[in-house]
């Protein structure tokens, strides 16, 4: 069931939200042990929360509707831990702005969708709590880092979810799981309460079963926030209103740089077919160039790790979260050995608290910001970023949206890329330019591989042109039935 279907049923009095939640919890009890979309589910707390919502919650657009939340978005008084050991026991004394906005519409928030530790990954395998599995094939990854959110939505363990996207972490798992995922324009959604990975790239966005739900959720969470200086003073349009409008006469660009060697032929064919569908709907295909695409991965891993190394510095065992055993003795400076115990506490806390991928990225980021390397790496990364932005500016002078594959392949096997970080990084090759440029992009299903794995296509638009994305995506969705297909696991 989609959010908009449930909303209509609740508003029409045809459906009791308590029953919906009970059914959902039943399905979670049945499938979550295998799929591990949620780190932890507390049925009684959720039932109590729903009861509270029904009695006192506003009768808003999400009244009585559960929304699943990735483990890096702060929910007041709930464990929020980025699937990391180092945040063990951390309960934020505040809601993220997006949570406040969901609650203001009457929603019930469901915590702790699994993720790659601190969103570092493309497979959800780096979670401290163990990997999430792809509902279409449990031997395969759901993508990442928002793998828990995408799996929950695809396997009907959620009605809709929030994920976060720094380099593709919403879109790639959406593609791998056959659902819809949107990375909004940078600044469209407040980052207040999102536990930062890379502050200049992170955005919160919806993962849903169809485009209509995606538009609805974005319209709830979008908007400027005085607590986030990077949120944009741009009015929030009526996103659902852009659905159902004709796309005839619009132009879609196809960048040749995205159809290069390494792309799975099945993926290329599916996206080519999608292009034909768009043409059938009256859109005009134009070839566009995004010449700096080959440098995107390098620039991204410099900028993102630099920011991450800094953002993660605060996890030191001093105030909250995990602290290494016997790490609590903190000697005054001047005592002997000089601050030895303090440094020991830092080292052991961080050595034990972070997983290998987090350590790798902290080291990379520390390195690129170090004296003598800053110019060669970080500054050069920023220059590439500017050039990539310019590529998109120029491309969008010639087209309304850009069509690309979301990922070069469908879902890969668990463990397949775990020992090869570079290979893992390359699975984001089509998604990271979007974050560097700050533009919005939507991934949606556009076919299946022969082995019945979903294939995702990506639609890109100019900053704050989300309505255009919804308009084209909805038209495509109406013309196809990929989104109606569900994994076998969701049927039983």
């Amino acid at each position, binding site marked *: 069931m989609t959010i908009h279907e449930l909303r209509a049923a609740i508003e029409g009095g045809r459906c009791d939200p308590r029953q919906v939640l009970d059914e959902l919890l039943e399905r979670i009890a049945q499938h979550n042990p295998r799929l591990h979309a949620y780190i932890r589910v507390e049925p009684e707390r959720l039932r109590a929360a729903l009861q509270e919502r029904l009695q006192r919650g506003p009768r808003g657009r999400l009244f009585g509707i559960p929304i699943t939340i990735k483990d890096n978005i702060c929910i007041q008084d709930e464990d929020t831990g980025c699937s990391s050991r180092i945040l063990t026991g951390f309960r934020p004394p505040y809601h993220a702005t997006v949570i406040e906005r969901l609650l203001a519409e009457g929603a019930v928030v469901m915590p702790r969708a699994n993720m790659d530790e601190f969103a570092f990954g493309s497979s959800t395998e780096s979670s401290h709590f163990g990997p999430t599995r792809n509902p279409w094939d449990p031997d395969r990854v759901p993508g990442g880092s928002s793998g828990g959110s995408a799996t929950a939505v695809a396997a009907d363990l959620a009605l809709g979810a929030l994920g976060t996207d720094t380099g593709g972490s919403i879109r790639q798992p959406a593609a791998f799981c056959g659902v819809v995922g949107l990375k909004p324009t940078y600044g469209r959604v407040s980052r207040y309460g999102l536990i930062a990975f890379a502050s200049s790239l992170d955005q919160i966005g919806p993962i849903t079963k169809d485009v209509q739900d995606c538009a609805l959720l974005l319209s709830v969470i979008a908007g400027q926030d005085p607590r986030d200086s990077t949120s944009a003073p741009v009015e929030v349009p009526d996103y659902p209103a852009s659905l159902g409008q004709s796309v005839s006469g619009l132009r879609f660009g196809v960048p040749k740089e995205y159809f290069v060697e390494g792309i799975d032929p099945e993926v290329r064919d599916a996206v080519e077919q999608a292009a034909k569908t768009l043409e059938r709907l009256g859109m005009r295909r134009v070839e566009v160039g995004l010449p700096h695409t080959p440098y995107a991965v390098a620039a991204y891993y410099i900028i993102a790790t630099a920011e991450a190394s800094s953002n993660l510095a605060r996890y030191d065992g*001093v105030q*909250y979260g995990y602290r290494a055993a016997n790490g609590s003795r903190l000697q*005054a400076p001047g005592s002997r050995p000089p601050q030895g115990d303090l440094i020991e506490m830092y080292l052991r806390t961080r050595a034990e608290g972070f997983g290998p991928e987090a350590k790798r990225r902290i080291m990379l980021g520390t390195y690129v910001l170090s004296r003598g390397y800053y110019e060669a790496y970080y500054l050069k990364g920023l220059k590439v970023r500017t050039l990539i932005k310019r590529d998109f500016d120029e491309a969008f002078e010639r087209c309304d949206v850009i069509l690309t594959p979301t990922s070069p392949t469908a879902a890969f096997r668990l463990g397949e890329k775990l020992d090869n970080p570079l290979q893992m990084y390359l699975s984001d090759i089509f998604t990271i330019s979007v974050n560097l440029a700050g533009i919005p992009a939507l991934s949606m299903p556009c076919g299946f591989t022969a082995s019945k794995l979903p294939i995702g296509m990506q639609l890109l638009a100019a900053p704050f042109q989300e309505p255009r994305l919804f308009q084209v995506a909805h038209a495509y969705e109406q013309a196809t039935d990929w989104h109606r297909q569900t994994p076998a696991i969701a049927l039983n």
Partner: protein
Amino acid sequence: MHEPVIGLEVHVQLATESKLFCGCPAAFGALPNSQTCPVCLGLPGVLPVLNQRAFEWGIKVALAFDCELADSMKFDRKQYYYPDLPKNYQISQYDRPLARAGHLDIPAGEGTKRIGITRVHMEEDAGKLLHDPQQPHSYVDFNRAGVPLLEIVSEPDLRSPEEAYQYLVELKSVLRYLDVSTCNMEEGSLRCDANISVRPAGGAALGTKVEIKNLNSFKFVRAALEFEAVRQTGALKEGWRIVQETRLWNTKTQHTEPMRSKEGASDYRYFPEPDLVPFGIERSVVDRLRRELPELPAQRRARYTAQYGLSAYDAHVLTQHRRIAELFEQTVSLYAKPKPVANWMMGGLLAYCNAKGKEPDEVAVQPAWLVHLLQAVDAGTISGTMAKELFVEAIEQQQDPQQIIAARGLSQIVDDGVLGPIADAVIAEHPKSVQDYRKGKHNALMFLVGQCMRRSEGKANPTQVTELLKQKLHQQGQEVTG
């Protein structure tokens, strides 16, 4: 001959109501960790939002030093690990400080000397570690974390510890005029690190510099620099090499001592703060702030010598505190004798402040009080000595001295109508002294004056009584002989 080359780095806490990036109170002295929130505690997921007032005050300071302002406001992260730094990075400014290339004119003899200001930048303060020797662990108080700071770095233009002292006095004076900081070194709202090297006098090349920390008063700064100048000069004369290092001032031994060197050179890995987007500094805002600048000490000094004919020294002392200067001008507008008013400001009010260890701002004085005292002395109603006593009482009782004089009947009797009968009675009662006086014994007159004072319970104006007695004795003498 060697000369010291000195530059100072001053950190000033801005006295804004709230912190630099959150709404917590920035006041000093609250219970530990009572003024904190998720933002200044650096909890996961929260974001900084710039305090507009702190930003504007930073511009004011930059304008007061005649700096070149940056086109835009850009913050950077300065990264290092310490438990009092909640995020393990400090939001600061690195390559594009708020302002550069300003100057501060400090008094030097009858003139001034211009000291360059290299840069002024804005950053957040850290918390404070509290150590209890009785316990195996330490505590962190985050009340100070996130309090707005300005770092003001001078050029190495200072050539003596005394100039460094004068620079600090003048800097504090300007900041107090702007009303942006309490500049209280004891509370840490003004902190100073000093860099000093020595070189052959008049040389162009700079020697190896030493940084001095733990300077908790202006006098310590001067004393530490004096010690260090002697130490370095002595070392060079012995043919030794100066080591670039950080030294701490030890107030007990009155020596600087090497600080335990850090492991390896520090690399703060500065990079642009992505949570705060750079924004343009608007011309209209700068123009408004420029208009709001008060007349600053240096300008005021020049005006005082020109307009009031005061000496450079008097002008300097009077203008150091904005409150003193304003009180001086208000008083002079009611009582147009600048020099006596100036003397009262310095000998009366400032002396009182020094004696009580108070800042002039902490002492409430009405210009009318001073005018009334000065007029009463002029009129001979009270003596200068009594005026000083009354001044202190006026401050402590917060009352117009005129009222105190009236209430206590303290005023001297100057009315001849009152003094006449007293003098007559004394003359009548002491014929022997009258005779002695007529024989030319001056002491006899003094005795009679004393008797008049006694009879008037000390209120008679002694000068006037003396004159009156002489007059009367002279008249009587004429009557006797005539």
